[in-house]
């Protein structure tokens, strides 16, 4: 990622936006988990999808 996001700010602002109070003692670990999610999601973000590829409205395996 070229510009590393400010995850602490992300957590504070997004939590405010959705009305989720995050107590100070939980905040550091929420940030760690967002960082972990960012690392794990990269292979998905790297995939290019055709415009026609919509989600399955009724999922059948």
């Amino acid at each position, binding site marked *: 990622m070229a510009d590393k996001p400010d995850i602490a700010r992300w957590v504070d602002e997004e939590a405010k936006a959705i009305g*989720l109070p995050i107590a100070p003692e939980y905040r550091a670990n929420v940030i760690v988990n967002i960082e972990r999610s960012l690392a794990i999601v990269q*292979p998905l973000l790297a995939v290019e999808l055709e415009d026609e590829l919509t989600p399955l409205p009724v999922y059948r*395996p």
Partner: protein
Amino acid sequence: MTDPTSKAATAAEIARAVSSGQAKALDVIEATLKRIDAAEPTVNAFTDVVADRARRRAREIDAGQHQGPLTGVPFAVKNLFDIKGLPTRAGSKINNDGPIAKRDGALVRRLEAAGAILVGGLNMGEYAYDFTGENAHYGPSRNPHDPTRMTGGSSGGSGAATAAGEVPLTLGSDTNGSIRVPSSLCGLFGLKPTYGRLSRAGSFPFVDAFDHLGPLARSTKDLALSFDAMQGWDPDDPVCTDRPADMTMLSLDEGIGGLRIGIAGDYFAKGGEPECFEAVATVAKALGATRTVVLPQAAAARAAAYVITAMEGAQLHLGRLRTRPQDFDGDTRERFMAGALLPGAWYVKAQRFRRQYRANVLKLFEEVDIVLAPATPCSAPRIGQTMMTLDGVELAVRANLGVYTQPISFIGLPVVAVPTRAPGKMPIGVQVIARPYNESAALRVAAHLEKQGVCVSTPA
């Protein structure tokens, strides 16, 4: 013949003995309750034992009622299944303040209709967001093969109770690997059926897109017997299939003739400890499988499964995270909170990608009938261990025990986890994966491996 009141008895052996009058259901239940009392201080598998109910049911069976293929078989369920008269804990403290279940979950009712006897509810990771079997409220379930080690989760109590021989049969749930991971770490056979195959009615949800229910046992026959008894459409679960049931017992002993078996390469051949690849090699050799196949974009599939899980799970619990954060297990709370803050674009992309990945994997299943892959990247870590080194990389235990199971449940494929165990080592499992609705092929392969003595599950 195995003593039907012993811990080594399988469900099939107990049912045969009770049905034929060689054993009394009540004697089986009393022996089971005694074993539970003796094992619990070590394994911590049960959160609820319904002794009076089990004895009552056993007496009815001994009087000739409730006869079926599982007559007199004691079983227990992960405590996210509704048990009439109890709160459905789902591993949480919060749900103890919730409603008392008015009736049993659908699969509990189906097993009891087949003659089985419920003896209790089992420990699990809070709200099923777990691969370890640890729980801050109820204590960790402990691996019967080495109580200092994890059972795996989130169906940790299901793994512990079955591997300790407390009961021959348990039910668990599997959203990302929660049947297959404890099966691997506890040395059990576990079946995660096709998505939608078994009703989820009367169970506490986690991630609707991936939630599956299924059995854990010490023999493939017990998996097949219980799976057959639980199949069938249920209007109370909108995802439950209306396909006719496939009676897997009928083909269980047909062997592997005609089945094309591949070994998952690429993503599934790296990132784990040597023991997990040795387990796959052992199973592949026994099956005469040599062909390597690639599930394309498996790393992206794992990422997508992670995102959908984090976001659906967080949305489900958002109200409780706002009002009772202090009552969550510290190991799930901040993960749920983080999931609530992830971008919606990730979720939609993950769902769109699922369609592409499903199409590509189904194409692969035109060339093979079965794919083999590791179940877990390592055998049981120590209880309390938070980091592990896999293939030279230090990784979080919680997020990574399911790296090989997540890309499979992501598209709802049926899997039987089969146990292997090298001398002097802890057990480790292999996934036997089939195309949708072909549980019978995976069970046939597992039965063949069991018959050959390659995959054996012995109570600790």
